[in-house]
């Protein structure tokens, strides 16, 4: 323990160059404070999206059951979700993770031009994803009549994917800010940690979409329906109706 801490202190607490050269104070953990904070934020954001995903999983089946019972209105997931289209969006976001990590590798080796190219590519791919989401939302609203308050599916779907889109938007803004700083000559090898932290956020946005793509788009909701149907059968037995 003492050896490790002493080593960390000897190297400026994780900043390497010592306090006299580092713009940030040494850390007691050996991990950059900003990086530690970002991982803490990402952990909390996991819970945020966990709640939204759970809500969606619960409500999508209810909407279907209500329609089947003549008490609700469509459209329903299988009527509006376009798997091929969303697959392309998912692929675009996945590839943006590659360009992001290439931007980090470039700045770490002092390749200014490479950093700018890959940051621009990442922001562009993120913007393409956002454009695709805008098209999807407007298509659902105008062509399928699915609004935010149309039914429980619409409410939970727009809330979940909308919050993810907001995260992507913030990520694109941060990437463009980094690019702007780089173009002004302020993003040198010594500031690679800034790219790394924003990169962590960007990759997180990607892994959230990996989960959303599977749970919202690919996994059929028959399980939910069968659960409700089982509940209906059980209730019918309780009431002596069957």
């Amino acid at each position, binding site marked *: *323990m003492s050896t*490790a801490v002493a*080593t*960390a202190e000897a*190297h*400026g607490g*994780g*900043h*390497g*160059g*010592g306090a006299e050269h*580092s713009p940030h104070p040494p850390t007691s953990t*050996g*991990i*950059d404070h900003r*990086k*530690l904070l970002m*991982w*803490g934020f990402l*952990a*909390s954001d996991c*819970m945020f*999206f966990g*709640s939204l995903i*759970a809500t969606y999983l*619960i409500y999508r089946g209810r909407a279907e*059951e209500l329609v089947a019972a003549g008490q609700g209105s469509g459209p329903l997931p299988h009527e509006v979700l376009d798997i091929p289209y969303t*697959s392309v969006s*998912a692929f675009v976001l*996945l*590839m943006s*993770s*590659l360009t992001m*990590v*290439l931007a980090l*590798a470039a700045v770490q*080796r*002092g390749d200014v031009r490479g950093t700018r190219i890959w940051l621009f590519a990442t922001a562009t791919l993120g913007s393409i994803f956002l454009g695709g989401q805008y098209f999807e939302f407007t298509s659902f609203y105008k062509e399928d009549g699915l609004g935010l308050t149309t039914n429980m599916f619409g409410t939970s779907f727009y809330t979940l994917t909308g919050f993810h889109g907001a995260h992507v938007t913030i990520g694109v803004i941060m990437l463009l800010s980094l690019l702007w700083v780089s173009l002004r000559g302020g993003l040198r090898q*010594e500031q*690679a940690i800034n*790219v790394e932290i924003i990169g*962590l956020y960007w*990759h*997180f946005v*990607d892994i959230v979409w990996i989960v959303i*793509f*599977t*749970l919202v788009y*690919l*996994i*059929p909701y028959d*399980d*939910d329906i069968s659960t*409700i149907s089982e*509940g*209906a059968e059980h*209730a*019918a037995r*309780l*009431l002596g109706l069957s």
Partner: protein
Amino acid sequence: MAHRASVATHGGHGGHPGSAAGEHLPGHPGQRTYINIAIILAIITIVEVATYYIEWMADSGVLVPTLIVLSAAKFVTVVGYFMHLKFDDRRLTWIFAVGLVISLAIVISLKILMDVHPIDYALRLLTGGE
């Protein structure tokens, strides 16, 4: 502990002040590895979508487990390699794991609640009650 000392010596990772210009951070993948990982992720995505369209998988009940496994593989790969958790300080893994476990607990517990609730819900459907 040795790992922690190593991390401190190398300034975590990310080219912190003190890293020599062009220094290759030990244990980190190179560009070729990143590209190979992206290709693997793309292939998994294609398999996921293809799986969705195979009817017998849905009929036999293996579709959902397959999709979850493939999705988890992509998740772990991105977190491990692109976010560098595989190479970074182990404490960062724990921080993220705590958030992830709580998140999973939220999803699972709410799902269980939903499995119970439909009985009451179905009663209202059957009886037309409020």
